[in-house]
């Protein structure tokens, strides 16, 4: 399994691993919000409001 594998390979005691997991999650969500989602949204046509595809 992916997530147990990551958990096993994080260094440090349990609390340190928990902090690392929180950090990784924050980075993933932030990059999704900042870069991935805006890019995907511009490709999907569901938010278009112009005529003639300008």
């Amino acid at each position, binding site marked *: 399994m992916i997530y147990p594998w990551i958990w096993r390979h994080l260094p440090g005691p349990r609390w340190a691993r928990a902090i690392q997991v929180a950090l990784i999650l924050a980075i993933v969500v932030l990059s999704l*919000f900042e870069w991935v989602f805006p890019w995907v949204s511009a490709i999907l046509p569901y938010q278009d*409001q*112009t*005529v003639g595809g*300008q």
Partner: protein
Amino acid sequence: MAVESVPSSDLAAPLSATPKSRRVLDSILGIVGELLITAGLILGLYVVWQLFYTDVLSARTQTQALDNLAWAEPVRVPAITAGGTTAVGAPAPTVEVATIPEDLKVYSAEGAPVIAEPAEATTFATLHVPRWGYDYVKPVSEGTDRERVLDKLGIGHYKGTAMPGAVGNFAVAGHRTTYGKPFSDINTLQVGDSLVVQTESAWYVYTVTDHAIVNPDYMAAVAPVPGKPGEAPTVASITLTSCHPKFSAAQRYIVWGTLKYWAPTGHGYPSELLEKP
């Protein structure tokens, strides 16, 4: 496959007690399951981002764009006007707001100051729509590129269409949902409503004349004479386009208007801004 009933207590036995092929299958299924759960979470996050976070971000950049216009009449203008209520519903304090004297109004496009089309993503005007509240003031920027203009700065001006006050069609687009949704209530506009555009040197008061729900390829909506491509314009028109229905790209909601009058800035507000339709 040999059918052997496994006592339930054996489920807790060490992994090595189960056949190897079974373990491989288990971990493959486990990983597929994890990936599916992850995909589900990402899709959920996308919805949250699209529906809520884009509003937060765009509201910020649009307010910023307005604040950068030194000449823009105070945003949330007649949140302070006679007898009205503010957006939050509190009775507005009665404050005398100067309105443009009649003799400064020019009831035609003749002599109207027309600014040159600026570079893409440049904010050059503001749009006030009394129907949408005393405090409805949004920036209008050049271009209709999703990423550079519409998703960030709000209302975008179709490149190549007329500028405010010019004979021709001043055509703009805006989101109806998400990204600060400047045109969320476009369907509430009625014939006779005012659309007030301000640039650095002038106010342009347009009156709504018509609306339509059209297919996305209906380019004629933004033609110099709306609906009649190829004809030479004689009046100054305005066109608002947004998506329809909400949260769909199937069609477009279009609102048309014509210029009622223009007046120089610096002499108060157009009285239309103080009257709630």
